[in-house]
């Protein structure tokens, strides 16, 4: 859900940039040099995941997986997803330049929220209950991203209000898909390597 250049009003663009700068600062504080390799390799993983298309009816969607990113990376999701969006804009023409801040905030902030609220729950109980919380996180991240995108448009002008609402409902299938995928991924990680969710816990420089 990338907004393009020229769609948003100046205050929204500037607001998004400022919020993203704040998020990046907080995220980088949790990334001492020893954590950069893990964060980089994970960032690359999420970049590759975002290129994956899964079918939905006769069409297909590409994945975002920001819920899973938030569960694994916490606040470090901000810089990690920012880097991914930067590379996408520059090399694939996806997104834009002035809206990089807004786009990062819209995708990374939901990730962080999901991480902060649900990480503990995802780690509690059996892998199956963890997977259910993971699925909730996957859906919640996409829902929040849609809402944030709709908000950035709605703050720009009234004319975007109705379509933004429509688009939220149109994204419900995507929420379901990301929920199922995130749930499955969490289920696997809980069985194979539960420490995955602890990599960025308590890291502070």
């Amino acid at each position, binding site marked *: 859900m990338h907004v393009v*250049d020229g769609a948003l009003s100046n205050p929204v663009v500037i607001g998004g940039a400022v919020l993203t700068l704040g998020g990046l600062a907080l995220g980088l504080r949790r990334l001492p*040099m020893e954590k950069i390799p893990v964060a980089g390799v994970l960032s690359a993983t999420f970049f590759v995941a975002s290129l994956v298309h899964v079918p939905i009816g006769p069409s297909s969607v590409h994945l975002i997986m920001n819920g899973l990113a938030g569960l694994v990376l916490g606040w470090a999701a901000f810089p990690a997803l920012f880097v991914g969006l930067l590379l996408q804009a520059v090399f694939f023409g996806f997104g834009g*330049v002035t809206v990089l801040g807004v786009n990062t905030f819209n995708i990374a902030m939901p990730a962080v929220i999901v991480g902060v609220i649900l990480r503990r729950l995802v780690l509690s109980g059996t892998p199956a209950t963890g997977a259910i919380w993971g699925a909730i996180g996957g859906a919640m991240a996409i829902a929040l991203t849609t809402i944030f995108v709709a908000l950035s448009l709605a703050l720009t002008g009234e004319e975007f209000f109705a379509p933004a609402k429509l688009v939220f409902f149109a994204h419900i299938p995507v929420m379901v898909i990301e929920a199922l995928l995130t749930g499955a991924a969490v289920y696997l990680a809980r069985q194979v390597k539960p420490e995955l969710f602890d990599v960025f816990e308590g890291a502070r420089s």
Partner: protein
Amino acid sequence: MSGIPTITGTALPSNAPGHQTGWLAQLDPRARILCAVGFAVTVVTCDSFGTLVAAVAIALALLVASRLPPRQTLRRMVAMDSFILFMLILLPFTVPGEPILTIWGISASWEGLAQATRIALKANAVILALMALVGTMEPVVLGHALHSLRVPAGLVHLLMFTVRYIEVLRQEYMRLRLAMKARGFRPSTCWHTYRSVGYLLGMMLVRSVERSERIMDAMKCRGFTGHIPLMKRFCLSQNDIVFAALFSLLIVTLLVGEALHAAV
């Protein structure tokens, strides 16, 4: 519908030896980044059609100079997110104004159409200029340039590690997908598909974290003490300065055109 063809085409670009590059790609990366950002900020603030069409023309000229494959790049330029495309199509119907036509009792306005066109022109001019100026860089050079533009070291190193391992992980993903295909996997809209792809991504995360542990070991073996050096140094040449000056002039011209238009 297989995920493989869609992903094979999307490796990060390479400026391997023998790769054809134009004069644009010879310029200082920092100058190109600053020009792209300056251009983007300018275009976004402009509103008159004349200025925006001129901006698109500039972007197209940059595309020619960049020697990027034109067809593929133009396709990428117009491939906006379906989300934003949907907004643009609806704009004529949601912006009040003089009606063009009426569908099911809802009328489309000229004003809405104009706004949608303006957004499309701006978005495409900016993204095209960005791809031509910055997208022709080796991603590693982008990192070095950002570093010398005072982007925080943590972010630059994160970018460098991401760029370093995208291809390794993309290959891993494709091998796994191939093996799934060999066992008769055909993605469809069903729980089995989503669970399998979810497992696949989860497994890639697990392996990535384990790889990063080995990377950290390798760093320790070479005396890692909490500092990663970056060595690249750039120096501005005469050509870079001339290009930056001319490009700035172009940007100023756009702004003057816009101001004249507003004054009319």
